[in-house]
Structure formats: C-alpha cells, structure tokens
C-alpha cells in the first residue's frame, strides 16, 4: 500500500487545504477511495492527492533554528494599549 496526502479546495476559496492522509494500492484506486474518505459530503469541489514519496521534506535542522525568536512575533498588544490610552485621553477632554 502507498500513502497519499489529500488536499481539498472549497467552493469559493482559492487555496487547497490539507485534510488528511490515506492508504491505497496505487494512484488510480487512490482517487475514488479519497473521494469517499474525504469528500463524500461535498467538503470540497477540487481535490489533489500527493504521493507521500513525492514530498520534499525539510530536515529538522533547517526548521528548528527559527523556533525561539519572539522578536518576530507581534501580538499587537503594545499598539492596542497605545490606541486605547489615546482614546481614553480624548474622551476625558
């Protein structure tokens, strides 16, 4: 059996989203089995299957160094606090 990654695009959207994985003997059988496993309730209007053997997989070493860089994250809190204090000051005038 081979493993396939299943992607669906919803009607009205442009991006495909990964919805899960599945097993099938080969590509021809994978398509109808994927349809029944992941799209039988019309969860999407287009479907892609990717043979897991064809994925280009990054090494952990390539990804890991970006794990601890809080300066790259902006939760918007400081800007929100600033706007609120400005608004409160205006209301007080």
């Amino acid at each position: 059996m081979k493993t396939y990654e299943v992607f669906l695009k919803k009607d009205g959207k442009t991006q495909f989203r990964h919805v899960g994985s599945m097993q099938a003997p080969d590509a021809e059988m994978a398509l109808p089995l994927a349809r029944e496993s992941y799209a039988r309730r019309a969860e999407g209007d287009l479907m892609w299957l990717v043979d897991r053997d064809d994925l280009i997989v990054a090494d952990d070493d390539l990804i890991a160094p970006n794990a601890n860089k809080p300066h790259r994250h902006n939760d918007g809190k400081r800007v929100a606090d600033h706007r609120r204090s400005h608004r409160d000051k205006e209301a007080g005038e």
Partner: protein
Amino acid sequence: MNDSLSPGASEWLLAFADDEHIIGARHTSWIGLGPFLEEDLAFCSIAQDELGHAIALYELLGVDVDRFALLREPSEYRSAWLCELPCEDWDLALVRHWLYDEAEALRWESVANSSLEELRFLAARAQREERFHLDHAEMYLRRLAHGDAEGQNRINAAVASVLPTALGLWEPVAGEPEAISDGITTQSSAELTVLWRDRVEAKLASWGYDWQWPTEIPDQQGRTQRSRHFERLLRDLQAVITVDVDTVW
C-alpha cells in the same frame, strides 16, 4: 400509496426500491469490517447511495418510507434473492456488488426515458453515481485477475457461487407488462438480461477469470418468495424501529 400509478407500475417500482434497500442494507453491514479503512468507507458510501435510491423510489410510491421499508410481511417484499444473500466473505460481497451494479446501471438506463417525470430525474442522478460504483467494483476485479493465484481462485469460486442467484434478479414481477405499457420503464427484464449477460461475459473474459453460465437458476416465483436469508435480515433491520414504532427518530 400513489394512486396515479397502476398496480403493475407500483409493483415494478417496488421491486426496484426493495432491491436498492436490501442491497444497501447488506453492503452497510461491512462498516468496520472492510479489508482496509479507506475501502470500508468507500463501500459503505456506495451502500448509502443505494439506500438513497431506495428512499427516493419508495417516495415515488407515496408511502411512509420508514414504516413501509421495514414493517411489511416478507411476502409483501419484492427483493431479488441476489440482494438478500449475506455474502459474509469479501470476495462474495465484491462479486455480488459488481453483478448487482451492472444490473442496476441497466435498470436506470431503462427508466431514463420513463413516462414518470420524477423517475427520469432520479435516473439522471443515479446514473452518475452508478458509473462510480461500477468503476469501484471493476478496479478490484481487474487487479485481482492480475494478482496471485489465491485471489483468482477466490473470485472464480465467488462468481460460481453468486452467478445463479444473480441471474434470478431478472425474473420479472407479475406487474412488469403493465409497467411497460404505462411507459414507467421502456425495456423488459428479458431484454435487459441479454444486455447484462453481454456485459458480464465481456468483462469476465477480458479479466481472464475461469467461469461459465449456470444452467440452474433459482425460481423466485415472480419475486413473491423470499430467500431463506431474508427473515433474519429483516429482524435485524427492524431492531430499532420496533422499540417504538411511533417515535420520530
């Protein structure tokens, strides 16, 4: 009941509806038991399609679907024995699925130009589903034909076991001539049998299975007789509704 239908037309539609109901029930019994998860889902999805057809056909008859589908006397059903077979091994279930869907596809073709408008609409929808059902069955049978000896032997044995009962599906109900003269269907069971035999024969030959047409076909007496497997099946199907027939589930 739908009074605009003649008794013959009603009986003909009833036979089709009961076949779809009973085959759907048999196929759904594979939930959790299929050869692998994805096939389990695919086969039960096919079963749901067949149950959907059954509901639509019962609705054409103008009946209270749940009660009518589940609470008749066995003699009032018109299901073919092919649908009633338990087929508790996957090879039997697969071969029965293919033989039934070859027949079902022909039956939908035979009502594509029905005098009954709702039936024409239903046929158009069902034919799209049937293409997939047949592809599904054939994918397996083609692969098993080119696989190892065990698979070939099991399919050979399953074809030999199921084929006589499958031929019995074409035994017409008494009302068929009236259904044809009303234009409900445009082809007789005898005509469809010829087409079905041609398709079955051509595919089995192309796959290279070892088989032959049976000489003995069980007599279902115009589908008025149920097979020995039916009562147990009906009892199982009734397990929930008989708890309280008036409850809306």
